[in-house]
C-alpha cells in the first residue's frame, strides 16, 4: 500500500465530508454555537407546516420548526427553535400559513395584544390558549390549495350560471337583442341629429340673447347718461324752468278752455237766433226749389241764366275793352 494512495483518498474523503457537513448546515440555516430556545405551540392543525420550516417574526427569520407531533385533546404541538438573542412578543401566538404560492409554509410569531382582526384566527387562538399548559396558542390559515379549491367551486358556479344564460339567450333572443341594439343605434343617431339642430337653435338664441344683452347694456348706458343729464339738469334748475313753463302753459290752456266755454255759452244763448236763421234759410231754399222768387226763377229758367251769362260775357268784354282802350270811355283833363 502506497502512502500516495492514502493521501489522495484522505484528501477526497475529507473534502467530501466537509462539503456534506458544511452544505447541509448552511442550506438548513443552522446556527452553530448559539444557544437556541425551544418553545412549543399548540394548533388544531398545522396545515402544511413541516419540520425545518422557518419561524418568522415581523418578516425576519428567527428560528425553525424543530418537531411536530400529535397531542392529547385533538391538538397538534410544534416545537419552535428560536435563535438566541431573539425576544418573542410578550403575549406570543403562532400563525401557521402558506408563505408563497408554491407550497412554502412558515410559522409566524405575532402578539396577541392587540388580538388579530380575523375572527376565525382570534377564536382559534383563544381556544388554544384556554387549553393551558404554558404553550403558545397557534392558528392555521387556509393554504393556497384550499383557497384555490374554493375559487374552483366559485368558478364552477359561474360556469353553471353562464350556461344558463347561454340557454336563455337562444338565437331568437340574440336576434331580438341585435334588433334592439340597432334600433337603439338609430334612436341615438336621431337624438344626435336633434341635438345638433337644437344646438344651432340654441346657438342663435344665445346669439340673440347676446345681442339683446348688448342692446340692454347700451340702453342702460343711455339711461345712465340720461339720468346723469337729468341729475345735472336738476342741479342746474333747467327742470324747474321747464316745470314752470309747463305750469304757465297749463294756465294758458285753462284760460283758453274758459274762453271756449264762454263762447259755447254765447252760442247756446244765440241758438234761437240761429234756428230762426235756419228756418228763414229753409224758407228761402224752399222758394228757390219751388222756383218762386228771383232766385227760384233764376234757377229754373235757363233763358234767364243764359242771358245773364251772356251779359256777364259782354260785361267782361266791355271791361277788357275799357282796359285796352280807356280813352275811348274815359277822358281826363286837368285844365
Amino acid at each position, binding site marked *: 500500500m502506497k502512502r500516495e494512495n492514502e493521501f489522495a*483518498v484522505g484528501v*477526497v*474523503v475529507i473534502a*467530501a465530508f466537509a462539503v456534506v457537513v458544511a452544505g447541509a448546515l448552511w442550506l*438548513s440555516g443552522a446556527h452553530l454555537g448559539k444557544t437556541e430556545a425551544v418553545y412549543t405551540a399548540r394548533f388544531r392543525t398545522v396545515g402544511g407546516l413541516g419540520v425545518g420550516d422557518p419561524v418568522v417574526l415581523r418578516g425576519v427569520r428567527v428560528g425553525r420548526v424543530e418537531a411536530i407531533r400529535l397531542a392529547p385533546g385533538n391538538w397538534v404541538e410544534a416545537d419552535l427553535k428560536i435563535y438566541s438573542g431573539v425576544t418573542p412578543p410578550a403575549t406570543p401566538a403562532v400563525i401557521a400559513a402558506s408563505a408563497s404560492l408554491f407550497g412554502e409554509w412558515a410559522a409566524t410569531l405575532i402578539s396577541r395584544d392587540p388580538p388579530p382582526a380575523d375572527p376565525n384566527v382570534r377564536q382559534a387562538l383563544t381556544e388554544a390558549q384556554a387549553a393551558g399548559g404554558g404553550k403558545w396558542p397557534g392558528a392555521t390559515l387556509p393554504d393556497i390549495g384550499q383557497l384555490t379549491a374554493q375559487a374552483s367551486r366559485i368558478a364552477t358556479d359561474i360556469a353553471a350560471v353562464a350556461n344558463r344564460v347561454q340557454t336563455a339567450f337562444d338565437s331568437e333572443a340574440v336576434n331580438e337583442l341585435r334588433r334592439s341594439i340597432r334600433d337603439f343605434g338609430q334612436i341615438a343617431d336621431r337624438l344626435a341629429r336633434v341635438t345638433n339642430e337644437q344646438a344651432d337653435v340654441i346657438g342663435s338664441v344665445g346669439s340673440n340673447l347676446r345681442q339683446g344683452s348688448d342692446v340692454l347694456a347700451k340702453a342702460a348706458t343711455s339711461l345712465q347718461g340720461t339720468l346723469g343729464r337729468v341729475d345735472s339738469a336738476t342741479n342746474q334748475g333747467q327742470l324747474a324752468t321747464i316745470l314752470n313753463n309747463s305750469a304757465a302753459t297749463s294756465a294758458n290752456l285753462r284760460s283758453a278752455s274758459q274762453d271756449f266755454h264762454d263762447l259755447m255759452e254765447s252760442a247756446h244763448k244765440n241758438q234761437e237766433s240761429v234756428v230762426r236763421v235756419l228756418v228763414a234759410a229753409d224758407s228761402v231754399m224752399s222758394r228757390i226749389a219751388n222756383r218762386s222768387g228771383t232766385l227760384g226763377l233764376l234757377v229754373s229758367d235757363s233763358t234767364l241764366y243764359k242771358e245773364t251769362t251772356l251779359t256777364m260775357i259782354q260785361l267782361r268784354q266791355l271791361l277788357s275793352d275799357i282796359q285796352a282802350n280807356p280813352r275811348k270811355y274815359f277822358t281826363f283833363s286837368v285844365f
Partner: protein
Amino acid sequence: MIAQLGRRTVDAVKAVGRFGHFVSDMGRALPDVATWGGLTVVQMRRVGVDSLPVALFIAAFTGVVLALQASYTFTGTVPLYFVGTLVGKTMMLELGPVLAGLALAGRVGASMAAELGTMKVTEQVDALETLAYDPQSFLVVPRVLAGTLMFPVIVALAILTGIATGWLASLVLLDLSTQEFLKGLKLFYRFKDTWFGLFKSATFGCTITLVGCIVGLATRGGAEGVGRSTTRAVVYSAVLLLVLDAFWALVLLR
C-alpha cells in the same frame, strides 16, 4: 416451452443462490481485516479518487443543463429563483447519485469484471486459493468496501460541482442573481435531501462493485468470456442501479 421456462426459472433461482453464497462468503471474510484493510485504501484510490474526473465532468454539465432547462420550463408564472430549487433538489436527490453511478458502473464495474474475469480465466484466483488467500478477503471485500465508501464521496463532490455550475449558468446565462439562486436553493432544502442522496449512492457503490466482482469471478471461456463478463457487469449494474433508485425512492421518499 414449459421445460425451457422451467430451466430459466431454475437458473434464476440458482443465480440468487449463488449471490447468497457470495455475500455469505464475503461476510465471513469481513473479520479478516489484516488482509483487506490495506487493499481497501488502494481500491478506494482506484474506485474513488481516479473516478472523480469523470463524475465531476458529468455533474458539471448536468448542472448547466438543469439550470437552462429549468429556466426554459419556468417561463411565465413560476419565479426564476426556482431554478436554484430545481438544480439543488435534482442534483442532490437524483441526478448526482444516478448519473455518477451510471458513469462509474461503466468505469468501475467493467474494470472490476474484466480484472477479476482475467484473473479467473488465467487461474490466478485458483493460485490465490492455493496460497491460502481467501479470494473474498483479498479481491472482493476491498473492492466492495471501497465502492460503498467512496461512491458517497464522489457523489457529494459531484453534487457540489453540479450546483456550482448550475449557479454559474444561472448567473451568466439566465440573468439570475446569486441571492435569487441561493434563495431557491435553500427554499425547500431538507437534511433528508443530503443523506438520501449519499445513502443511495452508497448502495449504488456497493451494488456496482458487488456485481462487478460476482460477474468477474464467474467468468468462463477465456478472453471472450472476459468480454462477455465485462458487458454483463455494466448492463447488470446499470439495470440494478435504476431498480435500486426506484426502490429507495419508493421506500424513503413516500
